[in-house]
């Protein structure tokens, strides 16, 4: 059990960070679909910067900044120019994917000795990590693990327990109403888009910094798309996202364990498990599976049509 949790928690982190980023943009009404690209970009930038500067922290921040820049483009193009969110997102997905590989090629090129960065050390929390059994399970991880959880809590608090959160959610539920009450919808959406994308970038940077110490093109392996599914699974709420990510990562770890234990089922079917299980869970998820009313819809003050 302890080992199971210790495996699940880090596996959750990229999902949690990227999905909370998606939720952050989405609750303000910006439906980002470029996660897969932004995660690859975050991984590449985070890795390259860490490598050249020698500091993982700087790498994480630059990855966040670069992904945030993409979020800014998404935000401006969709709120100020009212371009279709889906198309802009896909275009940014392409651009980010291309840019990531290009940067790596320019910086590293072809070599048989790829550069390596030290992966994040685990950072046992004083006192808490000494709690027998539980301490090892929950309080002996790298800093980004704690960050992901603390951030989820903060996001929840911000959205539901502050006045700014009230305004923020209004932009995704009914921007016209928010606007008519003096809430700056465009600015809120742009800021949400930037911060959300930055989180997705950090999620990407997590992969080289924790799992591998090196960057490879395919390392995100579709997780960016799964994150979108996760946002829906979590009903676009930070607290359920955490649960959804735990479920998803848990299923993944269980599936691998089943294979190692040699259950005799072809591994392809075992590897399907997380996806199938999520679909099954969703069948009963109508209770919480809501989404922001104006998710993905641009707001034009002077237009009489709904959007």
């Amino acid at each position, binding site marked *: 059990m302890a080992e199971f949790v210790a495996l699940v928690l880090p596996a959750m982190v990229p999902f949690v960070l990227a999905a909370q980023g998606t939720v952050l943009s989405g609750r303000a009404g910006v439906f980002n679909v470029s996660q897969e690209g932004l995660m690859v970009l975050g991984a590449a930038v985070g890795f390259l910067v860490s490598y050249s500067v020698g500091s993982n922290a700087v790498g994480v921040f630059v990855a966040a900044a670069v992904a945030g820049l993409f979020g800014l483009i998404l935000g401006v193009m969709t709120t100020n120019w009212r371009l279709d969110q889906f198309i802009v997102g896909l275009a940014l997905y392409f651009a980010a994917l291309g840019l990531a590989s290009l940067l790596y090629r320019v910086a590293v090129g072809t070599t048989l000795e790829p550069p390596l960065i030290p992966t994040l050390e685990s950072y046992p929390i004083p006192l808490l990590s000494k709690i027998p059994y539980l301490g090892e399970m929950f309080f002996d991880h790298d800093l980004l693990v704690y960050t992901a959880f603390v951030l989820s809590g903060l996001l929840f608090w911000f959205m539901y327990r502050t006045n700014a959160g009230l305004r923020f959610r209004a932009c995704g539920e009914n921007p016209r109403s928010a606007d*008519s009450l003096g809430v700056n919808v465009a600015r809120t959406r742009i800021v949400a888009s930037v911060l959300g994308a930055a989180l997705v970038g950090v999620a990407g940077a997590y992969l080289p910094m924790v799992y591998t110490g090196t960057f490879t093109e395919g390392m995100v392996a579709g997780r960016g798309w799964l994150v979108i599914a996760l946002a829906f699974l979590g009903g676009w709420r930070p607290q359920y996202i955490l649960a959804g990510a735990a479920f998803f990562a848990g299923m993944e770890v269980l599936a691998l364990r089943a294979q190692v234990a040699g259950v005799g089922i072809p591994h392809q079917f075992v590897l399907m498990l997380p996806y199938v299980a999520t679909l099954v869970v969703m069948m009963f998820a109508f209770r919480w599976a809501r989404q922001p009313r104006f998710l993905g819809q641009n707001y034009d003050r002077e237009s009489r049509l709904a959007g």
Partner: protein
Amino acid sequence: MSQSAPRLAMRGIVKEFGPVRALDHAELEVAPREIHGLLGGNGAGKTTLMNVLYGLYRADAGSIAIDGTEVSIASPKDAIDAGVGMVHQSFLQIDSYTVTENIVLGTKLPGPAWRLDLSDPREQVAELSSRFGLHVDPDAIVEDLPVGVRQRVEILKALYRGVGTLILDEPTTNLTPGEVDELFGSMRTMVDEGLSVILITHKIRETMAACDRMTVMRDGQRIATVRREETDAEALAGIMVGRDLDDGVPEAAVIATGVVEDVEDVAEVVESAEPLRPDPVDSGAVRVEGLRVRNDHGVEAVRGLSLSMGRGEILGVAGVAGNGQVEFAEAIAGVRQPETGHVWIRGTDLVGRPTREWLAAKVAYVPEDRDGDGVLPTMTVAENLVLGSQRSSDIRRAGLIDWKEARQKAAEAIATYSIRANGPNALAGDLSGGNIQRVILARAFAHEPSLLILHNPTRGLDLRSTQFVYEQVHAATAAGCSVLLLSEDLDELVALSDRLVTIYNGEFVGEWARGAVDQVAVGQSMAGVGVER
């Protein structure tokens, strides 16, 4: 007369939407402590002018002064800061928020930024609502509230921000007569407390009842500003329509104007006209028995209704919104599955059949919510007119829809129904409310219905459009159609119905024959007075 500066002065306001010049040097002046009526036909530019004032639209030219100082209003925030509040034609509320949350949204709150503490605002809301007679539950989720209450929430939103000028854009369209009176009472309180109120309405009767002065707009311009004491309903109607009414009185104008002077007059005017229709024949063309229907929340909203209608008969259903009208209309239109009961249309019980079979049985439904239930906004007028009859053989050639034919028919409908649209290929979403209603009516009548269900068919329409609807209804009844008219406009019901029933809490509670309607009794019956629970 008023020696001090006006509360509000809008001058030379111009606003264009592409080719449409919505405001053409419009003017408006509102005095302090005044209820100012803003009148005009559909599309006259009333809402646009107010949206400019509220910072939702940016004017192409013109100036705005408040209390004598020129202000620049570029966003609703500027308007709120300038003391302007607006209750929009359609509610702008976050459905999933509570009343208090909706009201405080966008304002600064006492207490630290990291904690949302709504206890003070809650009390303030409670205080405001009792002071102005706008009763709401501060903790209710707004989507669960009836329209009348949501209306109050909209007003409270403005009051909470401490307005000097409150704009009410057609606030009465959603209210029952009683609620209208309450609203007007609240407005008086506001004026007494120093506010100015701008009231937009199509009902001359209401302006005459509530306003101190009124401005009439037409084609984006001010036509006149008159004091109430210096005018009367007929004169106002004349200004609005842009012609003298002497050469003939449209029914709608009679309803809109006559009532003002004396409630009894309308009935007289209408009754004095010879009977509009022969007596209903074949009573039993439509029969409903024991209808029970649940609403979206699973609550029984229609509780055992029965009725019988003849060919060519108009049955009016009067009631306060939220007493099961929507569920009733949807159930006998075949849109909502009833729990139990029967609906015979010309002898066939259609309950349990899919909606398209009801359509095939010539049941036509003009829903109350025309944007939500009536129109396909991103599709063309021609396509909107085809909706519901896309499988009928008149517009199909070899199994395919013949769009040439459909457009031809749409062009005809545009002509006969005077739809102001840029041809059959115009997008329905670009049309004005009145014109959208015309499209919906054209579609309904094209079915040559045997049962026509009209729910608030003239809400928000101007005199001309209203008159037009009445003419179409008469034409349909002359062709033998039974019409079920659900309306919150009692005058309209009295003028049109052969028989009037009142609905309360999902049941019919009173019935009057044409000519024998006692409006006071109807009003009481609608309010549930004398009904045992």
